[in-house]
């Protein structure tokens, strides 16, 4: 296919989040299939960017140069100065290697090694550092023990899932505390094999449901605890509607919100190669990962007596 110099403009919505990023992904998929090698990511109308929107977008944009030779990207900054500053502070432009002329390409993305990008090749000690930095940053001011333990347990589990099971060239992890609404959003995106391939199911809907079921995603590599217990934590949180778990993979998305027993699983009009997990935790989360795990401990007479 001959590469063309025509420009593809992708407008980012005024609110970029887990729902609206799906439309953006659909447009990026069209761009990837075309012969165009230049894209403009237009944030001019964007006034709000959540990790659940920015993280998969960043993951995708960093991936493009691997597939399109002589690719060049251009950013149009948000007209809202505060929003643009926030996106910059999140490291979004740095991670694309954006230069002063607002352009990025294959060479510029490879120049930057950012703290929150990792892969199976990232040394173990660096990933441990990433986990600790993000956990300490988001728990140090919290008085809620449930929240601290939830973050300390869930984030390393989700990071290990992405690193071990995704077979992705790169994974991106972002987090943001929302000062209005008292919750924190964590998002991990990969461009790997996806949940269906990892679970070995015939379809994505059954794979998504199974990965948070008591059956879990047990395979030879692990016990499938990460997503299952994270979903249990959300289900048992009765503090309000703030906590949730969303898993986007392939052409479907699963969502579970606090206090609900059943997930909502839907097909989407787009396709994500890989998995995006968004965990939103209320500052006042009432469920305890410790209690949930403790309730799973049975056969105590078979446990070794080795603590002292």
């Amino acid at each position, binding site marked *: 296919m001959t590469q063309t110099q025509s420009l593809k403009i992708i407008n980012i919505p005024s609110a970029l989040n887990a729902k609206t990023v799906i439309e953006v992904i659909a447009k990026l998929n069209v761009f990837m299939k075309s012969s165009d090698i230049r894209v403009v990511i237009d944030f001019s109308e964007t006034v709000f960017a959540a990790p659940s929107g920015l993280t998969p977008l960043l993951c995708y944009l960093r991936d493009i140069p691997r597939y399109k030779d002589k690719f060049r990207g251009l950013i149009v900054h948000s007209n809202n100065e505060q929003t643009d500053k926030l996106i910059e502070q999140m490291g979004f432009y740095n991670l694309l290697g954006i230069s002063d002329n607002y352009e990025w390409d294959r060479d510029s993305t490879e120049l930057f090694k950012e703290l929150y990008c990792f892969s199976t090749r990232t040394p173990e000690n660096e990933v*441990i550092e990433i986990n600790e930095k993000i956990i300490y940053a988001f728990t140090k001011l919290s008085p809620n023990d449930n929240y601290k333990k939830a973050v*300390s347990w869930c984030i390393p589990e989700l990071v290990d899932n992405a690193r*071990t099971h995704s077979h992705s060239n790169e994974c991106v992890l972002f987090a943001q505390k929302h000062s209005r609404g008292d919750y924190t959003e964590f998002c991990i995106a990969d461009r790997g094999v996806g949940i269906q391939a990892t679970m070995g199911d015939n379809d994505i809907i059954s794979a998504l449901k199974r990965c948070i079921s008591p059956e879990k995603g047990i395979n030879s590599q692990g*016990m499938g605890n990460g997503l299952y217990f994270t979903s249990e934590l959300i289900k048992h949180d009765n503090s309000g509607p703030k906590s949730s778990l969303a898993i986007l993979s392939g052409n479907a998305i699963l969502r579970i919100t606090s206090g609900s027993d059943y997930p909502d699983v839907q097909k989407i009009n787009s396709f994500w190669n890989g998995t995006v997990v968004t965990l939103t935790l209320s500052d006042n989360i009432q469920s305890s990962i410790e209690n949930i795990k403790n309730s799973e401990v049975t056969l105590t007479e*078979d446990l*070794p007596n*080795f603590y002292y």
Partner: protein
Amino acid sequence: MEIILKETGQILGLRETGSRLRKLLETGLANNEIILIDFEGVESISSSFADEFIAKSFMKVGKEKFSEYVKIKNANDFVRVIINSSLSERLKRK
């Protein structure tokens, strides 16, 4: 043999870390050494880490030998819950 975990980190979450440490543990068990695992300074562990490091070794050698040769010290309550639940999971699947 002593395995001092805070030398690795304060929050231990990776299977890779667990797998690496399990090799040390299994070497000690094969040599019938007493192995002291010191969790001082470790604030939290993931179930994946506990499963890879401790539960898999436990299932391999059995309760009797494991209890005799492996000692865990300075594990806080949360770490103990995660270890116990990982062991329990493996036992249920046996």
